[in-house]
Structures are given as C-alpha cells and as structure tokens.
C-alpha cells in the first residue's frame, strides 16, 4: 500500500519513463513503419514520389507524436475519455454537414493543411470512452439494462453518423472496437450469442436494405468470376497477385501485378497484396509475425497494468487492431467481401495512421505508467 502511494505521486523523471518503455513494441512499430515505407516506395514504381514522401512525413510526425503521448500520464487519457469522444462525434457531425465529398461519400473534413477522416479517429476514441465508462462500474452493474443501453448508444451514435457518409466498412470497424470493450468489460456472453444469432437471421433483410453497390460487392465476393472485368476485377487481380508471389515472392520492386497497374488501390486497401506479391509467403508470414508480436505486447502491457482502465483499453485496442488486420487480409485474400478497411500503419492514409499511432501512444503510456492507479 505504501509503495502505491509513493508511486501515485507520479514523479517519474524523464529517464525513468524512458526506461519503462516497451522496446520490443517500439522496435516492432518502427520495423513496420520501415516495411510500409519500402512498400510505398514500390507502389510508386521504385521512385520517391508523392505517396512515398507523404507516407514518410506522416510516419515521422506520428511516431514522434506517439512518443510524446507515451510520456503523458495515463491518468490524463482517462480524464479526457468522454471529452475526446464528444469532440470526435462533433467532428463527425461537422463532416456530415460540411465535409468534402469524394468518390460518392462525404468522409473528410478540410483542415487546410490536412484532410482528416474523423471516422478513423472514432475507431480509437470509442475504446477510450467505453474503457472509462466501465472503469468504475461494479461487475454486478455491468449487465444492468441502463448500462447496456448507455453503452449501445455510445456505439450506435458514431456508427450512424458514419453509415450516412456512407461508409459501411468503417462503421462496422467502429462497432467492432466498441463491442470488444463491452466483451472485456464483462457483459453477459448470452447477449453476444443472441446478437450474433439475430444478425445471422436478419442478414437477408439487411442485404435487402443495402445500397446497390454494396449488394454487388457481396454478390461479387460469392462469385468473383461472374463479372471478371467489372465488380470482380479487384478481387481476381488481388488473388492473382498474391498467388503468383509464391514462396519467396517476385522480389522487391518486381511485382508485375502492381507495377503494371493491374492492382487497384494498391496504396491503400490492397497494400498487403503488393507486399505479398513481392515478398511471397515467407515475407507475408514475417509481416504477420510482426503484427502478432505487436498485439501480444499490447495485451501483455494490459495484463501488467494495475489500473482497470488501462487493462480495458489495451485489451480492447489489441482486439480492434487484430480485427482491422484480419479483415483487411481476409478481404484481399478473397475470404471476405470488399469493404474499405486499411491495414494499420501499412496502408497509405493519414487519419488511419494518426488513429493507430494515438492508440499505440496510449498503450505505451499505460506501460510507462503501469503502476499508476486511477481512482
């Protein structure tokens, strides 16, 4: 008890904090950043062009930001849990009214120096918000109707705002992030099973309500060869690229599918396809291992945190990152229909990287302040 009070004094020196860093996680993140940079260089056709430069700058800035966040006490992040959620929700509302329309959906807000996609940030801040919500709650209250309703509203509000953009993929990922926290917070597993069953049963009705392009994606996923040059093109070309990579890949900068522009969206959602084509099965497994180590470290940090909030955030974030990775990979490997979902850190796109780096930063902060108790 004594020790606790001493540590809660929160008087770590800068060097002490430095020593508390999780270096394995840091190295893995930096390694991932390096790999993503090399891959981006390949998408630019082996030249340092716009995407490479921009990705490099974002990596530098956001890594610095992550380090900065990790020095800030986890208590601070706890304290801004609700506020940040409200801010992001208002950004979403702003976007709904004043956002930039691009390729048919209103997802971005113009910040003059950068175009921000608030829905990406929501993927992280919903975890923060719900982690705070459940932090003080007693276990017997967790399954009360009031709690469940409140948490559902917390999830459904941003989801609805993102669906109207329209951006089904991101809204599903936001929901997944939120539901992961609910799961760890101890909501009765029956609810999850019932919801799952309900979802499966209502699936045909949901499909009936989907927009035509979304329906097409689902149908294409079920049978991509039906329209190989139209809707099925992306998934067929992606599978060809991955499959032709073989065990050791075609070699760096030698991925013909991407180099000759057969691959669509190779900078963003299909970056793994390009990587897999050039580095083969071995390279892909190495990349997966790096991701697995990252997720493992995040969970380990959660497990070693004294505060319930930090634990909940780390577990939730670890699960969310895992889902982001698996959904993206399953999509490019033809296991899931095409939904817009970037691969964390690897994919080009500032908002996604910003959100992910904030998440890493908070996790790192939880590690640095692992003995911090939150009242």
């Amino acid at each position, binding site marked *: 008890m004594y020790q606790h009070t001493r540590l809660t004094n929160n008087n770590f020196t800068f060097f002490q904090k430095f020593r508390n860093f999780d270096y394995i996680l840091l190295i893995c993140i930096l390694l991932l950043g390096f790999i993503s940079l090399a891959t981006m260089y390949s998408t630019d056709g082996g030249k340092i062009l716009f995407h490479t430069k921009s990705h490099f700058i974002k990596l530098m800035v956001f890594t610095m930001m992550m380090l900065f966040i990790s020095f800030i006490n986890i208590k601070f992040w706890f304290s801004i849990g609700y506020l940040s959620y409200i801010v992001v929700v208002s950004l979403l509302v702003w976007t709904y009214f004043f956002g930039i329309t691009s390729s048919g959906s209103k997802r971005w807000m113009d910040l003059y120096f950068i175009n921000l996609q608030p829905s990406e940030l929501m993927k992280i801040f919903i975890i923060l918000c719900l982690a705070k919500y459940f932090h003080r709650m007693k276990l017997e209250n967790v399954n009360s109707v009031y709690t469940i309703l409140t948490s559902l509203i917390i999830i459904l509000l941003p989801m609805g705002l993102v669906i109207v953009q329209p951006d089904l993929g991101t809204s599903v990922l936001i929901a997944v992030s939120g539901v992961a926290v609910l799961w760890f917070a*101890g909501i009765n597993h029956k609810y999850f099973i019932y919801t799952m069953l309900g979802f499966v049963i209502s699936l045909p009705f949901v499909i009936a309500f989907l927009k035509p392009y979304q329906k097409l994606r689902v149908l294409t996923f079920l049978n991509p060869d039906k329209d190989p040059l139209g809707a099925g093109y992306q998934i067929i070309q992606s599978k060809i*690229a991955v499959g032709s*990579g073989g*065990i050791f890949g075609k070699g760096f900068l030698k991925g013909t599918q991407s180099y000759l522009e057969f691959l669509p969206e190779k900078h963003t959602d299909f970056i793994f396809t390009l990587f897999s084509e050039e580095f083969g099965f071995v390279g892909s497994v190495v990349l997966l291992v790096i991701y697995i180590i990252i997720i493992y470290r995040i969970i380990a940090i959660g497990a070693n945190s004294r505060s319930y909030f930090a634990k909940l955030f780390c577990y939730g974030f670890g699960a969310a990152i*895992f889902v982001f990775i698996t959904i993206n990979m399953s999509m490019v490997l033809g296991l899931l229909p095409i939904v817009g979902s970037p691969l964390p850190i690897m994919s080009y796109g500032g908002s996604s990287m910003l959100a992910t780096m904030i998440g890493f930063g908070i996790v790192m902060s939880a590690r640095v302040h692992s003995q911090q108790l939150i009242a």
Partner: protein
Amino acid sequence: MINSSSDNVKKLNSINRRMFITGSLKFFIMVGIISRLFFLQVKENKKYLTLSDKNRIREWKLAPVRGEFHDYFGNVIAGNFEAYQLHVIPEQVENFKYVIYRLKDLLELSDTEFKKVLKKKKESKPWETLIVSNNLSWEKFSKINNHLYDLNGVKPVISISRNYPFNENFTHVIGYVSQANEQDIENTELIKKNFVPGLKVGKIGLEKSFEEKLIGTNDIERYEVNAYGRRISQLEFQKGKKGQTLKLTVDTEIQKLANELLKDKAGSICVMDIFTGEVIAMHSSPSFDPNLFVFGISQDNWQIIRNDPMKPLLNKTLQGRYSPGSTLKPIVALSALENGIINTNFTVRCTGKTELYDQTYHCWKKEGHGYVSLRNAMKMSCDTYFYEIARKLGVDKLSETAKKFGLGKKVFDNLFEIEKDGLIPNTQWKKNALGKGWLLGETIITGIGQGYIQTTPIQLCLMTAQIANGGYKIYPKIVIDDKDKIKPSDYYTPLYKNSRNIKIIQDAMFGSTNEVMGTSYRSRIDNPKYQFAGKTGTAQVKKITERERELDLKTSEIPYEQRDHALYIAYGPYVNPRYALSIVVEHGGNGSTTAAPMAKRLFKLIIDRHEMRQSINQKKYLEI
C-alpha cells in the same frame, strides 16, 4: 475499500478469462489466414503465376515473309519488295488534327481515303499504330521524310510486301495475293495460325494452291504490357521463317512472247515438254496486273476488269471449254486406225457436202476436195472424210481414244481449283446427263470436233504432246518439286495398240504444215531445226444458216461474238520432237490465218532456248 477490492478481483478474473477466450479465437483466425496464404502462394502458385503472365505478357505477331516463285531459270516472277508505309501512333502526336491534315496535303489523299483513315483511327486505341498509307511511291516517301520535322509521331516504315515484276504475264499461272478474309482464315488452319491484321494470302492460282508452303511463319514479339494494354518493354523477339520458294517449269521469255502474241485478243497459249510434261508457258489472254490486288484493288480498276467483254478474270487455258474443231481430227483418225475401221488406203470422195440421215453436212470447202485419202484429208482438213470415218467408228470408240490421250479430264488434278473437266461425249453420257438416246448425226459432227464435245486448251496441248512423243503417257507439271521425284507407275506407258498408227498421224500433221495445200502451209519453217508439224482448227460458235453460207462473209464482216474460234495444235522440231503447243484464239476467225502464224514465232523462240534449258537441267544433275 475491502468491498471494492473484492469487486476488483472479480472484475480482473472476468477480464482475464475473456482475454483467454479472445486469445484462443485470435489464434484460430491467424491459423486460418496463414493457411489461406499457404493455399494461394504455395499450393496454387502455378495457376496464379500463369494467370499473372497472361495478364502481363502479350504477343505481337508480324506478317510472315512469303516464299517466292522462280521461273525455270531462277528469275523471280513473284517476289517481295519493300513497301514504303506511313504509320502514325495517335497518342504520340501532340496535335493530331494538324498532323493528319498536313499529311492529307502532302500525300494528296482523296476524300474517301482520308475518311477511311479517320474511321480506322476512331476504331483503334490511341497507342495502336495507325497505317495512314501502305504503299507510298518513293517521291512521296522522300517528301514525307523531308517534312518530318513538323510531323511529330509520324513514322515512315519500310515493310515487306508481294510484288509481281512481270505484271500481267503470269497472273493466270501464279494468281495473286490480297488481304486474308474471314473465309480464308476459316478454311486454312495455317492462315489462322499465322494471321495478323493485313496478312496477304493467295486468292487464286498457285499462290492459293501452295499457300501452306508459301506462307512462312510469323516473327513474334513478346512485350510486357500494363493493365491498359500499353507496351512497357520488349521481352523477346522470335524470328520467323520465310516461306518456301517454289521453282516453276515455265520460261519467262516464252511466256512473254505468248502474252505479246495474244495482245488485244482473247485466248490461250500453252507450251509443254513432250517427255517431261513440264509446262513451258501457259498464258490466258487478256490478263490483268496482279499487283493491283496486293493492297486491295480500287473500285474503278475492279469494274474495268470485271466488265471487260474479253473476260480477263477467266483462265481460258484451264477454264475455257472450246469445241476442238479440226484439232480433234488427229484423234479421230488415230481412233479409226487403232480400231481397224480404216487403213491408209481408205479414200472418200468429197463433193463439198454430204447427205446423211436426212441432213446435209457441209465440208468447209464448198467445191469439195475430190477423192481424198487419210493423209490428204488431214492435210487439207477435209470434213467429209471425217464425217465418214466417224460414222463408221461410232462415238463410243472415239471417246475412248480421246480420253486416253487426255481429253475431257483435268490435266493438273487438284493443283488449280478452277480447272474444268471439259466434256467427251458418248452414248452412255447422253443417256445419263440428258436422258435421251444418242443420235447418229451427233456422231458425225463429233468427228470434226463440234457438238457436245468440249476441251480446254491445256488438254489439247497434252493430247498433242502425247501424239508427238510417240504415244506415251505423260503427267504435266508446272512446279518443280524435288521431293516428288517418284513418277506415277504408268508414266510412259504406251497409249497406242500399234505404234505405226501414231507415225501415220505424225506424218499427216507434218503434211498439213509443210506441204503445199496443207492448211498451215503458210506458217511453215523450212529450216529442219525449227520445222514443226501441226493441225489447224476452226470451231463454230453457232450453227451456220443456209443464208449465211451463201453470203460467205469474211471474218471481219461478222459480229465479234459470232466469229469462229481459231485453234492450232503443233509439235516440233519434226525430227526429234521435244515441244508441243496449243493455241486458241477466241473469235479469231480461222485457225490457219490467226493461230498458226503464232506457232511459227513461238517455235523459233522455244527451240532457240532449248539448249539453255538443257544446260540448266544438266547443272542440276551435276550438283547431285
């Protein structure tokens, strides 16, 4: 505090339990993703690698270089030349409109040509080559080269194309090439295999018959292309094989003389080696320039050729079916001798006409020939004599001999798909084809080569050759094919029952040409080196009415289409003969005045060139 800490412990237990469940779930999902990667990248790798190559590698075939035709002396009679072409790649042109109008001015393109180019441009992708002009004159080509500085993206190109240096001389032998159409591609597997846009294939003649030997194989360029079909880099260039060069038996000089002799006339000349069956010349007149067809014939030129009343498109040597007229008489006489109907002493009195079966049959000479024997009847071409022996012989025996000597049957088998059979009638044929019985009067006129009987000029030539060589079977050929040295088993088998009979006919033909009163006496050559023996023929194209007979019009007074065909068959030199020929001049009037003089000029040249021909032949054997 205690309360809250026990709650904390519960909460921790709950979260850790759930973390464990989540962790296991994650493990299975990861295993799933890795197995999917393994399935795609290791197990199915080959399939996807093939698909990826299919995506990125595209082949471009270039037109193969066509084999040539050489004459007997190695002169190129159908070769390849470098055509000057103008290509434009629209995407490399900054201002397409400016360039294309500039080109229109420089090339003096007509509006229709210009519209065609614009239409082609619309139909192709901007990086695909647009052929503005496919056969430019040197003047225009160099003019363009001088203006290249302001014609960005315009490429002067030299491409290889068919050329017929002797223009109309060989058209009916070798035919011509033109752009392959759908039918050509469907019918010939090799054309399908080697097809490239603009590929030229044989449309008729030997060019068509030997398509598979001539076509050669494509050069193949393999390029890496991007998703939009743009070429990125060349991966491979595979040189194709030039088509096989075919050597013909024809002699260009003699062919040219044949063309010259038949100038402004419709008809045919063919010359054959009587021992080897080699065709020395084979010309059908009028002819046309095959070079016109190579890049597609213009509508105007096509209409001129198509509407010519002398029918240049018809190969008269192989397709023209003519009544042989008196040129059949050697066969009629031979048949009568062979069948023992007559001997050389058999005589007939000719009074100018004869009444048989209530019908009057006229001899060409109104006042008659008096008493004529076989030799004189041949020499003076007495019709009455042949009416009489045909009557005694009967059409069935006559047709048997005629067929044996090559009449009424394709000479080249399937070499020329246009070749016609002709017709040698007999009683059986008439019953089958017309369903009527044979009339004796029909036998009578068959005896002078009129009536149902129809022969092609090449058949007449073969018949003459087989009489000239002493009555032995030969197989005519026009392409020297070294692989095909094996002769048919019945080569040189005798066609006669008694070789003396052949001698009698040969002697009679000699008389016809070289003795006073002979029908072609005026065309004789006294020098034994060139001396030849022949038989004239004049084939009626319509029945002569009594009134016309009384009028006795001169040829020039009769309308062109009603004039008689003039025919002549001959062989020479008379001592040690070597060559036979047949001449047909459509509506030429009279065999002795129109056709026979041509033979005189031909034999001079043929025999002058004989030694040269022999020396080539010997060289060939020496090399082996």
